[in-house]
């Protein structure tokens, strides 16, 4: 199987992270050039207006206030000009803020949406073998949290541009006005950026640790409340309380650490600009005395200091965001770069009646590397996330050079102990997996040559874990394909689902809830079965699909299938004797090999291993039927 190449090793050195970070910035800029450009315009307007507001203030102090106060009379025209200047510059600043923030958000959310679309497109194109190697939590996290974290670096970008321009503008003004004042400015500014960077860096780590502890607390509570019955009946409430206290105190300590970090850094970051202002005042006094600067200029610089100090924080934030964005992007990129899309042929699988199906020298090995383990998969999705074979690793094992031929229209049972390869064969027969070696044919045509539509139209599989979508009962049977209500009812009747559906509040229009949560396991299985039957497939594969259905109903279903004019070849992976005996033929599997085939009765007599396996059921299930 063409395994996906997933080789991008995340950089570990600070330089490596920084370089990668620049690359992520480039990805962001390239994919949302419009919003970023307009955001930059806003940033320039804001920066210019901010520096301008300080200049206006200086001008007003020197040219309007001082002369007027000194002279004791007012020059009205000049005053109004001053007021207009101050207000005008302020309004310009507001315009800059709106543009900058609006387009920063637009860039962020456009990028998120774009990459969510890209990632989910990959999910739908990549083969099931790829899905098997990744846990549900991981895939959810890639499309949701990872994309989100990656593009957290978008919003600060225009702001960072403003800050750069403001620092540049202020620096220039300081230099032109007075090199001594400039020296003061250039000493405090970098200190502020550095303090911020260290703060953000440490805080990020502390916050992440606290977040993890928070998740742990929720996990323990969730588990403990779920297991309340066991805990109560075993009298373990006190021990549970102690367990929870320990983990809650761990969270407390981590949150206190977050609080202490802030306690240490917040005042420094708030206080540094104030220290700068006082220094400007002190140095300024000498410079005024020396006649190098005016009082207005000193006032102007103290004001400017205050204005520039806040935006400077953005560099700390951006620097702190980069490592996280890099991690997020690495994970997103890994999905985008995964290869091995399923390629379908052109052949149509149309024909009359059940199809002949065959495995020819088929070998399939599950990659034993297990799944790609990304250390921090998403927090648990909820208690009801099914532990299915597709995401949880499962216990499926491989097959070796299997030959198998199922004549058209037959009903065949696959029987064998856990891990014998039954579900693997089922998945191969419907092309959810492709064999490593050999081929699987459908009426003599290699499955890989069938078109995607024909595969879906003529071959159907029903899993043990009946997966229902959030929607109506009818939608779960049609899956959006065109079927009349009569056809839906007919399929449901065959699946013996008709009865309970009729007693649901809205019948076929009843919403089943997320994953069909409102229904029982057996009801879900019967709806999933109806979904397969309505398609009148030429090959129907039931992978332990009726395990939660009452045995009486199960045999009704299977007999019904045989009696109805269902034009199918049927392959049943089964445990119950009742379903096994309904098959025309039984294939007995052990350790990825077919050990015997024949009628149930014959295998019972001639194959001791088979007899042992099946008898275990009879003892358990069948004792009453004497």
């Amino acid at each position, binding site marked *: 199987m063409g395994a996906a190449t997933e080789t991008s090793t995340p950089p570990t050195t600070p330089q490596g992270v920084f370089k990668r970070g620049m690359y992520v910035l480039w990805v962001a800029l390239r994919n949302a050039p419009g919003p970023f450009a307009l955001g930059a315009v806003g940033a320039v307007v804001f920066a210019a207006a901010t520096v301008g507001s300080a200049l206006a203030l200086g001008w007003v102090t020197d040219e309007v206030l001082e002369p007027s106060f000194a002279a004791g009379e007012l020059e009205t025209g000049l005053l109004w000009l001053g007021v207009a200047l101050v207000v005008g510059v302020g309004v310009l600043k507001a315009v800059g803020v709106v543009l900058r923030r609006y387009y920063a958000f637009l860039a962020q959310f456009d990028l998120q949406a774009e990459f*969510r679309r890209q990632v989910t497109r990959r999910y739908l194109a990549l083969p099931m073998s790829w899905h098997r190697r990744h846990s549900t939590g991981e895939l959810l996290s890639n499309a949701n949290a990872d994309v989100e974290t990656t593009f957290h670096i978008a919003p600060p970008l225009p702001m960072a541009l403003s800050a750069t321009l403001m620092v540049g503008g202020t620096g220039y003004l300081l230099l032109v006005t007075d090199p001594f004042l400039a020296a003061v400015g250039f000493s405090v500014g970098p200190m502020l950026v550095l303090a911020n960077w260290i703060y953000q860096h440490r805080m990020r780590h502390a916050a992440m640790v606290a977040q993890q502890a928070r998740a742990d*607390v929720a996990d323990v509570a969730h588990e403990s409340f779920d297991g309340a019955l066991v805990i109560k009946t075993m009298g373990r409430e006190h021990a549970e309380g102690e367990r929870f206290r320990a983990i809650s105190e761990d969270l407390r300590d981590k949150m206190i650490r977050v609080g202490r970090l802030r306690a240490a850094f917040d005042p420094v970051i708030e206080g540094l600009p104030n220290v700068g202002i006082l220094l400007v005042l002190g140095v300024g006094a000498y410079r005024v005395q020396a006649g190098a600067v005016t009082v207005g200029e000193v006032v102007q610089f103290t004001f400017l200091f205050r204005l520039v100090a806040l935006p400077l924080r953005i560099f700390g934030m951006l620097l702190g965001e980069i490592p996280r964005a890099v991690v997020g992007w690495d994970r997103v990129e890994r999905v985008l770069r995964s290869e091995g899309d399923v390629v379908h042929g052109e052949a149509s699988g149309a024909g009359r009646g059940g199809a002949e199906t065959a495995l020819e020298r088929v070998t399939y090995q599950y990659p034993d590397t297990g799944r790609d383990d990304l250390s921090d998969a998403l927090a648990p999705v909820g208690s009801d996330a099914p532990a299915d074979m597709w995401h949880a690793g499962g216990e499926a094992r491989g097959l070796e050079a299997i030959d198998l031929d199922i004549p058209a229209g037959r009903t065949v049972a696959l029987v064998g102990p856990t891990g014998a390869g039954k579900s693997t064969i089922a998945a191969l027969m419907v092309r959810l997996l492709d064999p490593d070696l050999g081929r699987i044919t459908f009426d003599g045509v290699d499955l890989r040559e069938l078109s995607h539509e024909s595969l879906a139209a003529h071959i159907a599989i029903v899993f043990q874990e009946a997966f229902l979508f959030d929607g109506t009962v009818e939608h779960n049977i049609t899956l959006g394909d065109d079927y009349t209500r009569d056809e839906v009812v007919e399929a449901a009747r065959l699946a013996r689902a008709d009865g309970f559906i009729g007693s649901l509040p809205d019948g076929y229009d009843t919403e089943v809830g997320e994953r069909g949560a409102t229904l029982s396991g057996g009801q879900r299985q019967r709806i999933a079965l109806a979904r397969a039957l309505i398609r009148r497939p030429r090959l129907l594969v039931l992978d332990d699909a009726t395990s939660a259905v009452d045995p009486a109903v199960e045999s009704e279903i299977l007999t019904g299938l045989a009696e109805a004019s269902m034009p199918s070849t049927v392959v049943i992976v089964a445990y119950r004797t009742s379903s096994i005996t309904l098959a025309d033929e039984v294939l007995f599997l052990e350790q990825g090999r077919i050990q015997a085939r024949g009628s149930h009765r014959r295998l019972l007599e001639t194959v001791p291993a088979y007899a042992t396996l099946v008898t275990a059921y009879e003892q*358990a299930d069948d004792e009453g039927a004497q």
Partner: protein
Amino acid sequence: MSTPPVDQPLEPTQGAWETIVRGVRMSPELRDGLRLTLVLAALATAGRAIVPLAVRYATDHGLGAAGTGIDIPMTMVVVVVAGVAVMVTMVASGLMNARLAVAVETALSNLRTRAFRHVHELSSLHQAAQQRGALTSRVSTDIDTMSRFMQFGGLHLVVAAGQLVIATGVMLFLSWRLTLVVLVSFVPFVLLGRWIQRRLTTAYLLVRERIAQLLGVLAETVVGAPVVRAYGIEARTQDRLDRAVDDHRRAAMRAGRLSAWFSSSAEVFAALATGGVVLVGALLGVGGTVTPGTVVAFIFLIALFVEPVMIAAEVINEGQNAVACWRRVQEVLDLEPDVLDPVDGDDLEPGPVGIEFDHVGFRYPVRDAHGQVVGPGAWALRGVDVEIEPRSKVAVVGETGSGKTTFAKLLTRLMDVTEGEVRLSGLPIHDIRFASLRRRVVMVPQEGMLFSGTILDNIRHGAPEAGDQQLAGAMADLGLADWLAELPEGIHTQVGERGSALSAGERQLVALARAYVADPDLLVLDEATSAVDPATEQRLQRALAGLIEGRTTVTIAHRLSTAETSDEVLVFDQGRLVQRGHHLELVAAEGVYARLHASWVVGTSGAGRG
């Protein structure tokens, strides 16, 4: 009998202030050392006015803007004094922050643990599965929200309020006329800000909803990938995903737009206030009422003014949210546990346990949306009189809703009877100390509920003091040694979250072993219904036989074979005990059991006997 979820939005039962007062009373840690913290907070806030004042003073008196000529020593004095004051402020602010963090987190952690212990005493935890999620939120996200608010928003709110007061005070001290100008300019901003923030709250709510929807569709795509693939519905699935992605983007942009308007409106009002101060300041200055330094100081103070108003507008909603969370936690603590450990209770005598039900009736309580009991529901069980001999094996059968599960819950005192009395070995069950009851009476629930950890950890829940050897020995007693040998790590195999790394049958094996090491005298088994593979099935039967040996056993039977091999069968129908006797007698008689039996036989008849 359906219990409404605790989570739905409700009319608050107590006001915000009442909630805070009660909350502080419940958590004395919050008051520890509060006085010093408040002094530090006052210092920290006051410090924020230092720099504008220093600039004003230095401008007027040091730099000589008021026409007095330059005065270097004076300027230096101002700079040094202000510098020292700034340092003191920084230290005070840091200490305050740290002290608050310690007090708040300690209080919340204790509150969390207390709520957790309390929840375990509530029977709704196992009666109403749909409330579990809500109860989990009470001890996790609700308290997290409070913590976040108190550490971030709440602190800002306090400091911002202080800053506002101090800035106003300083302004008033400098010039009440200019203060009036600033205040008047800000009134519309406060009103507009509140309005925008209210809309923002709704906007963020919508964003969260959209994220949840997106996650839902995403989870369906990922978990349901085999179905999507096998049924060829990729295009339709992608459409749904794209729509969810786009809905989220739109909702997020709406919030983004509002937030952009909010911050820019702050700039506009600051500009208006500055313009007003320059204009009025100049007019007053000419008259000699204010100095240039005062005008400059005001312009600085305006910045001190904008910040808190913005912060207040932003965090006030968070604050309301946090209070609502606090209230919800308090409401959970207000719920009375309905099954209590008796004061001066008795211990069960050693030896096998017999059971008596004396005219027992039970009705589930009807609860309101807060989880408070508002009245009795229909009878789930009524008029049950039965005696069960020590060491006998009894099967309880009946259709869903017949009352057989209620019977088991009363027998283990997960609930208390509504009328009549349950006695174990002659002692009324409500007089038996929990410690004794839980040690001697053990229930094995239907799906073997496991906790994450190893198999050994899980078994140890049955006998916390037992050594590893002893527990491993118990596994061997039940014939499970060969199963353990097949596992990669044997008894140290991790079972995963809720035992998900094991199959359903294997989880039951562990649950049986856990009950076995607990060594109870009365065993209540809720038989599992799910099918398991034959090898595991055999093991289950063997383990079960080992477990029930020599104990009084009551099994809620779903399988005919269990009823057949029991000493006695109790048949429940619509809350009544309608038949009792041996399987053979009951089959022969007309009645509920014969009917149940007939349908069982049909169910298993497909399995031919070769």
